[in-house]
C-alpha cells in the first residue's frame, strides 16, 4: 500500500478559473506510488478539471504541481505523458475515424527511422488486447467507430495501462461497462497499483469506488473537502462525505443538522 509513502505527484494551492468561474479553488492534493485514490463529488465539483490539470490538458491559473518534489509546468498533455502520467479521459480520447492500432499509439507512435513502425504497433496492440481480454478483435485495422461502447472503453484503458508510466489517471473509467468488464478494469487498476503506480480515478458510482480505492478525496464546488483512507466505509458513509462537504461550505457542522438528517440525505 502506498498510503504514507512520499508523494510522487503533488498539487499545492492549485486554482483554475474560466473567465469569472472558479472551477478549482486552492487544491492541495498528493498521490503516492502504490495507491488507488478515488476522486468523488457531484457534477461540477471540479474532479474532471483537476484531472485535466494533472494530465496537462489545462494549465493551473494559480498554484504549483510537483513531481518527485520538483516543480513542473505542463504546457500540454505530451509534457505530462513524458513526465510519466497516462490519462483515460471521460470522452475516452479516441478518434472514431482512425483504426484501433493508430488510436492505441496516438501521441506515442513507434517509429522506424522517419516512418511509423506499423508492424510493431500492430503486434504490441494485439498483445495488449489479448491481455485485457479483447483478443477477439482480430481486425486491428478497423475504425474505432465500429466498436461497442465497452470495447472502446477497454481500448482506451488498455492504451493507458500499456504504456506503464508512474501515474495512471482514469476519469469515469467504468461508466459504459458491464459488471464483468468493470471488474476487469478494477483488476487492471489493482495490478497497476501493485506494480507501484499511483492510480487516480474519478467515479460517480460510490459502490464501485469503495471496492477499488485505498483513499477517497471528495470535491465540492472546486474545493477538496474530505481526504480519508478507505477503512471499509459503506456507500452511505461515502455519500455523507459529499453532504458534509456541502454543509461545510454552508458553514454548518454535522452536529448542527444531526446524524439522522445526514444519514437520510446520504440515503437519498
Amino acid at each position, binding site marked *: 500500500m502506498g498510503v504514507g509513502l512520499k508523494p510522487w505527484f503533488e498539487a499545492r494551492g492549485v486554482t483554475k478559473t474560466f473567465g469569472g468561474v472558479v472551477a478549482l479553488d486552492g487544491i492541495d492534493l498528493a498521490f503516492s506510488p502504490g495507491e488507488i485514490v478515488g476522486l468523488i463529488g457531484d457534477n461540477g465539483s471540479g474532479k474532471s478539471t483537476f484531472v485535466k490539470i494533472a*494530465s*496537462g*490538458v489545462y494549465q493551473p491559473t494559480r498554484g504549483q504541481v510537483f513531481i518527485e518534489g520538483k516543480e513542473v509546468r505542463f504546457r*500540454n*498533455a*505530451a*509534457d*505530462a*505523458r513524458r513526465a510519466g502520467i497516462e*490519462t483515460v*479521459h471521460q*470522452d*475516452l*480520447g*479516441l*478518434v*472514431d*475515424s*482512425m*483504426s484501433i492500432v*493508430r488510436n492505441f499509439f*496516438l*501521441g*506515442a*507512435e513507434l*517509429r522506424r527511422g*522517419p*516512418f*511509423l513502425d*506499423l508492424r510493431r504497433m500492430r503486434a504490441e496492440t494485439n498483445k495488449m488486447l489479448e491481455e485485457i481480454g479483447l483478443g*477477439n*478483435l*482480430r481486425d486491428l*485495422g*478497423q*475504425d474505432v*467507430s*465500429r*466498436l*461497442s*461502447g*465497452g*470495447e*472502446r472503453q477497454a481500448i482506451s484503458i488498455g492504451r493507458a495501462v500499456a504504456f506503464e508510466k508512474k501515474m495512471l489517471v482514469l476519469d469515469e473509467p467504468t461508466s*459504459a461497462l458491464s459488471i464483468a468488464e468493470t471488474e476487469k478494469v478494477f483488476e487492471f487498476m489493482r495490478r497497476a497499483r501493485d506494480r507501484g503506480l499511483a492510480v487516480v480515478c474519478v467515479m460517480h458510482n460510490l459502490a464501485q469506488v469503495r471496492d477499488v480505492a485505498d483513499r477517497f478525496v471528495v470535491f465540492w464546488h472546486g474545493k477538496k473537502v474530505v481526504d480519508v483512507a478507505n477503512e471499509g466505509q459503506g456507500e452511505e458513509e461515502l455519500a455523507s462525505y459529499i453532504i458534509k462537504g456541502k454543509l461545510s461550505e454552508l458553514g454548518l457542522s454535522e452536529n448542527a443538522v444531526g446524524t439522522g438528517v445526514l444519514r437520510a440525505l446520504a440515503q437519498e
Partner: protein
Amino acid sequence: MLDVANTGTSPAPAGGAGGTARTSRLGGNALVFRLLRQRETGIIAVGIVLFVVFSLLSNGTFDSVQNWGGITSAAAELGIVTIGVALLMISGEFDLSVGANFSFSALVMAIMVQDHYPPGAALVVCLAIGAGIGLVNGVVTVVLDIPSFITTLGTFFLWTGVTLIVTGGETVTILPPTPTLLNVLGGVLSGQVRSELLWWLGLALAVGVVLQRTVTGNWFFAVGGKRSAAVEAGVPVARTRVLAFVACGVLAAFAGAVQLGHLGSMSASFGTTYQLEAIAASVVGGCALMGGRGSMLGAVVGTLILAMLDSGLILSGVSPYWYEAVVGVILVAAVAMHTRVGRLVRGGD
C-alpha cells in the same frame, strides 16, 4: 495504390452498439466487405463507368492516347492543388485561397524570370510565397480561433486584389528562349506525356506516404478526426494544423509554377475556380467535409473524374456549359454514395 489504409467507413455514433461480432448486410463476404470499406472503391467504379460511357458516346475519340494526354495535362495543375486541399480537409480545415495563391505566387515567379533572375531563385520565391500564404492562413485560423473557411475567404480576396494591383490585370508572358527549369516543370516529356503529369502523381505518392506512414500523417488524421482526442493524446495540434495550411499553400504555389512551365505565361485570372474545384475533387474522392477521412488515391481519382467530365462532355457532343451542372450532380451523388456505402458496411442504420 497510393494509400487506402486509413479511409474506413463514415463515422458512427460514439459508443454505438455492436462491435466485433457485428455482421453487415453484406453477410460474410470478406473481400466485398474490405473493398467497400475503402471509400475510393465506389468512386473508382464511377470513374470506370464514365470512361466506358464517354468512350461509347464519342466514337472512340475519348479513349484515344492523344485525348488522355490532354486530360491528364489539364488535370495535373488542379490535381496538385487538390493534393494540398485534400490534406487540409483531412486535417479538418478548408483553404479557399488556393486559387489566388496559385496565380499570385506564379505571377511573381513569371515577373522574376522575365526580369532575368535565375529561374531556380524565382521558383524558390514562388514556393516561399505559397508557404507564407499558408502560414498566414494557419496562424490566423489557429491563434485567433477563426473558422478556416472565413480566414481563407478573406485571404482569397486579399491575394486576388494584390495580384490585380501588381499586374494591372495584364498577362505576364515569358519570351523565348524558355528556361530549362520551366520545361522541367511543365514541358513535353515524350509524345502526349507532359512532365506535369509526373509531378502530380509523384507528389500524390509522396504526400500519400507521409499521410499513411509517418507520425505527422497520423496526426493530420487525428487532428481532423477529433481534435479534443488529439489534444488529450499530446499531439501538437496547433503546429499540425498550421503545417497542413503551409503544405497546402506550397502545393498551390507549385501548381502555379507548373502551369507557368506549361503555358509560358501567367495571369491573375488563372486558377480562380481552383478552390471550389479542388474541394469538389477531394469530396468526390472520399474526403470527409468534417475531416479525419480521405486519401491521396481519392484526391487523384476525384480530380481525374472532373477532368474526364470536362473532356467527355465536349467529345460526346454535349455543350460545355453543362460541365458545372454535371459536376454539381456528381458531387452530391458521390457524398451520398460514400455515406450509404459506409452505413451498409457498418451494418447498422
